[in-house]
């Protein structure tokens, strides 16, 4: 880590030396400083603690059936975790639905463990039940780290889900007359110090899609994509989406398919 931090700082200093103009330099200093900060955060990501917790939950018998999730089919066959996240969301024949990692986990908890998952759907973010789901999602996503995003729209329902997500992305409403595209449909948008990715492009979709679940340093919490989307809805002053509902999966499908071919970088770490 130390070498990486030092390298980022050297790069920052070199950049300062090259740019002469005082104002350009100020701006550059800030951008480079923040870049160095973000780089330094990456190593020793507390998300690893959630990965560990998620793995334990995956392997531990629980629920009325006292069964583990080891037999859960995430799309690559029962119990196959490695690489599964890179291909989610996907169409599952057993549920005849397109599911993301979190909605699929609910299916497995219900089918394998006999758990009434409604409590997990209804639980607020940041409370133990949601934290368990997010730890599981973190573990599963981590097992696809560095794999290429490979989501297929071959099944008609998958294609449908993508189109639904696209419609949702451009759907403009609420007291602020916002859509997702208002912030994420143009290059170079920014909120405070955060660059907002343009989800319509592969690069932008990759920046959004491939880094969640992520550890949020501001809150010291692990956030999944479901939580991230829920908060996007809040920020738009939209009604709160139901956890793991089709609408949330559809938005994920839109992002994931746009990000196809990019590299899974989860679990991430964010401001």
């Amino acid at each position, binding site marked *: 880590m130390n070498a990486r931090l030092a390298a980022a*700082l050297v790069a920052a200093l070199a950049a300062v030396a090259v740019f002469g103009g005082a104002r350009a330099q100020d701006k550059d200093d800030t951008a480079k400083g923040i870049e160095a*900060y*973000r780089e*330094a955060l990456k190593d020793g990501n507390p998300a690893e603690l959630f990965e560990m917790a998620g793995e334990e939950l995956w392997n531990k018998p629980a629920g009325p059936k006292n069964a583990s999730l080891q037999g859960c089919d995430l799309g690559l066959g029962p119990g196959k975790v490695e690489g599964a996240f890179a291909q989610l969301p996907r169409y599952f024949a057993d549920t005849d639905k397109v599911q993301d990692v979190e909605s699929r986990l609910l299916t497995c908890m219900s089918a394998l463990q006999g758990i009434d998952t409604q409590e997990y759907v209804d639980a607020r973010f940041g409370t133990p039940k949601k934290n368990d789901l997010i730890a599981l999602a973190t573990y599963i996503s981590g097992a696809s780290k560095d794999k290429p995003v490979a989501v297929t729209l071959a099944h008609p329902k998958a294609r449908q889900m993508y189109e639904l997500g696209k419609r949702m992305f451009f759907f403009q409403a609420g007291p602020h007359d916002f859509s997702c595209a208002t912030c994420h449909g143009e290059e170079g948008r920014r909120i405070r110090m955060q660059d907002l990715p343009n989800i319509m492009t592969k690069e932008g979709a990759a920046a959004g899609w491939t880094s969640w679940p992520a550890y949020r340093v501001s809150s010291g919490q692990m956030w999944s994509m479901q939580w991230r989307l829920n908060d996007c809805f809040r920020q738009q002053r939209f009604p709160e989406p139901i956890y793991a509902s089709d609408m949330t999966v559809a938005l994920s499908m839109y992002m994931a398919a746009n990000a196809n071919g990019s590299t899974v970088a989860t679990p991430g770490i964010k*401001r």
Partner: protein
Amino acid sequence: MTDKTVGRRWVVKRGAVLAALAAAGMVVPKELFASWNKAAFEGKTADEVVKALGGSSAAASGEVQIIASDIAENGAVVPIQAVSRLANTQQIAILVLANPNVLAAVFDVGPDIVPDFTTRIKMSQTSNVIVLVKADGKFVSATKEIKVTLGGCGG
């Protein structure tokens, strides 16, 4: 807190004593931490901390290094690397002058340790950060300003 107290036997013995005391229900937890330097951690200025650690002053030294970004996007988590190139380094401390209590951490440097620690601190606001080193019984330091852009809410 000298190197002698860091022995394995000491740890084991202390554990046993703690267990016994706890079982007897007669302990105030604070008192268990004989080696936690309360005075130093309650210091409001660098001077108070240096004194509580047993020194009188701490001159700047080029042999002490703080590696950190100039700007922290969020003060809740600020990566800091503290390095001493001085022979016989005994202790390294990290201080944040603008925090309510300035001392964040003290590391004892025994004979087996390379004086090079990385951790993450909280900063309440933009502040000078000091790495304080005790070497050969003397205190020296390095200072770096780190700007904190809290970045507001949500996100």
